[in-house]
């Protein structure tokens, strides 16, 4: 008895001794290191597909960068003198941090969560977006930002499109005009939809993005050849040019023994990006015809066995990534191809379709986008000049943007740069069998129309997809599923009413 007890107690004592040290000590330092290294490895992996092309063009890009950086650097150091010495940036992962580290001229990395621009210290405050933690954090710090002490003030925060309006339509975000940026002139080459997402109800732009994550239909070339007799993007496009032909093709694909899409959730984004009115008018929720069409089309496809009902990012969803592939198409932007679908042909064989260069890309039935990060200035910032320069450099400087496109495979938010990529071999992608996707992506980015977004989109889309999933699987009829959507939406937003 004594022995047994002493073993246990010694364990408890050891734990107790470790506790105070670990619990009290600041623990921010170690966390970001793993995240940063992973992001770095991800970007190198993705970049390697275009690495070969990069070497040929890098010299010209580098010159452009050098030229632009000298001008911006000069302006920063002048104005920074009477401004704050600490720049706090709120973000949910290390993506923007690595872009700044790699591409912002003056940035010097200090450690994983801090850096320096001139004599200004840059703090990266990372709160993951899981479980709404990132937004919860913003909600608690932004309203008090103006009264916070100088070194604690948030200067820049990042947003995703799904909830951007929540901050854009409030006073916590500065308008670009107040920063001294003229959107009409400075952002002339940016795609309209990226501007719509951060335009408030009075027409003021309150943020900007360096990415235009327009997306397309990514099809399995082997299945296309077998079913359609061709894997040429233009020819495949004819078979999926609108939803009716898409559904026709789905039948053929099914008859050949494949699934058209992995799950119904693949197409949701495409339909929901092409609605005729926002989800919410005032506080009344309206079901748009195009969303209803998604429900009807999806139900038909599920019943016909042409698609599944799994969640995105589930293993069942990504099963079609593995060679030879049982799914005809996915819907996604460049980053889905480069980061998610598998190893590029010049890397170790991981048994994926991507490794065989087996994917192709076309526009698909409707244009849409997926992802993207917007940079916003927090009201109360004490570094407006530096913030302005960061936004301008990262989202408008063609040299920087070209560099980002080549190194990080971002589909950048600049018409000229995308046009250039579309018309040169720089944009060829080995995963797509050497196809240059920028032709489709640039064309798609022009067509994406995001004037119909609302601040509730993220929560409503989630609730709607979950509720309709039960309709598709036959666990609920449509009315019950819709009622479940209402219930779930009101749990998130008690103020909403439904027509």
């Amino acid at each position, binding site marked *: 008895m004594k022995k047994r007890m002493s073993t246990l107690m010694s364990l408890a004592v050891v734990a107790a001794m470790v506790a105070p040290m670990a619990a009290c000590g600041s623990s921010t330092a170690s966390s970001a290191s793993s995240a940063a290294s992973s992001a770095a490895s991800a970007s190198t992996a993705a970049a390697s597909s275009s690495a070969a092309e990069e070497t040929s063009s890098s010299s010209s890009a580098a010159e452009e960068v050098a030229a632009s950086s000298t001008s911006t650097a000069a302006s920063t150091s002048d104005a920074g003198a009477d401004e704050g010495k600490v720049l706090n940036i709120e973000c949910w992962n290390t993506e923007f941090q690595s872009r700044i580290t790699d591409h912002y001229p003056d940035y010097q990395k200090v450690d994983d969560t801090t850096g320096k621009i001139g004599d200004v210290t840059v703090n990266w405050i990372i709160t993951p977006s899981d479980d709404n933690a990132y937004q919860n954090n913003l909600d608690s710090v932004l309203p008090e930002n103006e009264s916070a002490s100088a070194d604690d003030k948030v200067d820049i925060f990042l947003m995703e499109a799904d909830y951007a309006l929540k901050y854009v339509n409030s006073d916590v975000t500065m308008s670009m005009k107040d920063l001294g940026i003229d959107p009409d002139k400075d952002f002339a080459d940016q795609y309209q939809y990226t501007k719509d997402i951060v335009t408030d109800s009075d027409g003021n732009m309150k943020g900007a993005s360096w990415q235009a994550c327009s997306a397309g239909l990514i099809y399995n070339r082997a299945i296309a050849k077998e079913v359609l007799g061709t894997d040429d993007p233009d020819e495949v496009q004819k078979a999926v040019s609108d939803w009716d032909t898409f559904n026709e093709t789905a039948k053929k694909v099914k008859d050949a023994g494949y699934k058209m899409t992995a799950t119904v959730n693949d197409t949701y984004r495409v339909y929901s990006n092409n609605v005729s009115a926002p989800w919410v008018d005032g506080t009344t929720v309206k079901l748009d015809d195009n969303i209803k069409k998604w429900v009807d089309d999806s139900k038909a496809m599920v019943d016909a066995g042409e698609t599944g009902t799994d969640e995105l990012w*589930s293993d*069942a969803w990504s099963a079609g990534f593995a060679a030879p592939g049982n799914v005809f198409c996915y819907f996604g932007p460049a980053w889905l191809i480069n980061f998610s679908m598998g190893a590029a042909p010049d890397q170790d064989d991981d048994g994926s379709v991507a490794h065989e260069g087996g994917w192709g890309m076309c526009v698909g039935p409707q244009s849409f986008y997926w992802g993207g990060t917007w940079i916003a200035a927090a009201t109360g910032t004490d570094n407006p000049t530096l913030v302005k320069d960061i936004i301008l450099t990262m989202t408008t400087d063609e040299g920087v943007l070209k560099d980002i496109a080549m190194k990080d495979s971002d589909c950048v938010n600049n018409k000229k740069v995308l046009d250039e990529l579309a018309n040169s071999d720089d944009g060829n992608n080995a995963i797509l069998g050497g196809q240059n996707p920028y032709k489709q992506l640039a064309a798609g980015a022009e067509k994406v129309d995001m004037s119909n977004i609302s601040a509730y989109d993220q929560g409503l889309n989630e609730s709607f997809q979950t509720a309709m*999933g039960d309709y598709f*699987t036959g666990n609920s009829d449509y009315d019950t599923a819709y009622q479940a959507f209402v219930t779930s939406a009101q749990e998130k937003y*008690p*103020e909403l009413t439904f027509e």
Partner: protein
Amino acid sequence: MSSKKSSSRIMRHNKYGYIFLLPFMIVFVIFQLIPLISTIYNSFFENYMSGLMQIGPNFIGFANYAKLFSSGEIEKYTANTMIMWIAGFIPQIIVSLLLAAWFTDPSLRLKGQRFFKTVIYLPNLIMASAFALLFFTLFSTVGPIHSIAVNLGWIDQSFDFMKSTASVRTLIAMMNFLMWFGNTTLLLMSGMMGIDQSLFEAAEVDGATATQIFWKITMPLLRPIFVYVLITSLIGGLQMFDVPQILTNGDGGPARTTMTLIMWLNKHLYSKNYGLAGALSVILLIITGILSIVVFKLTAEKEVKA
């Protein structure tokens, strides 16, 4: 209390009773009582976040309670919770009783007892969230159990364990069973071993069979520990959260047929609706209270009869 002298000496020390109670009471007041009171207080207010704006707090009386009951949701989730608890508890108590009886039965002389005890207690140490995630991956449409079941012809290729109410509830009940039957077995065993061996010997001499001994001697003497197991399991069952939350990613799917009361509470906490979350908490408190009283009463009555 043997003599007057000693009892007076005890009296002198009795102020230490308060001193030794202090840490418990301080922690209880700060971390449980104040939060509980503020939860109850909140339940009478309209108080939630709309975007960046806080709505309320406005006093609205019992409107939050009315809202909870008017939708019929709360009955549904209470039923879900109880169904899944009972489906896990019944096999748990039966299997545990059997195992405990076998392990303590000297006539059986089971070998490898230590091994079996070690194995059956093992799942209890497994993090519920890891266990649930494991089950989710194993039973997904591309998971190993699914493919085995398809190969054996038990299920159709298109069957999805996560899309059927019966299968998701069964999985949750099975996980609760696996996690707790070993623990219950050990507890019941300790109760059985505490029973005076001479009673068994006397019964055996009188020619009682093993079954008779079990029902006439073991079970009645086991009641206190049996009640303890029942109460703790019931309280645990009402708090069921981790397993269904992670198995269904918080949705309680399909169609919320596996959503438990605490998962629902979590949804309101998540969307910062303090009024509704408060009202739901108070209802949970009342349900727990009633169930506990019922269990206490039932056992008290039985004891009187016996």
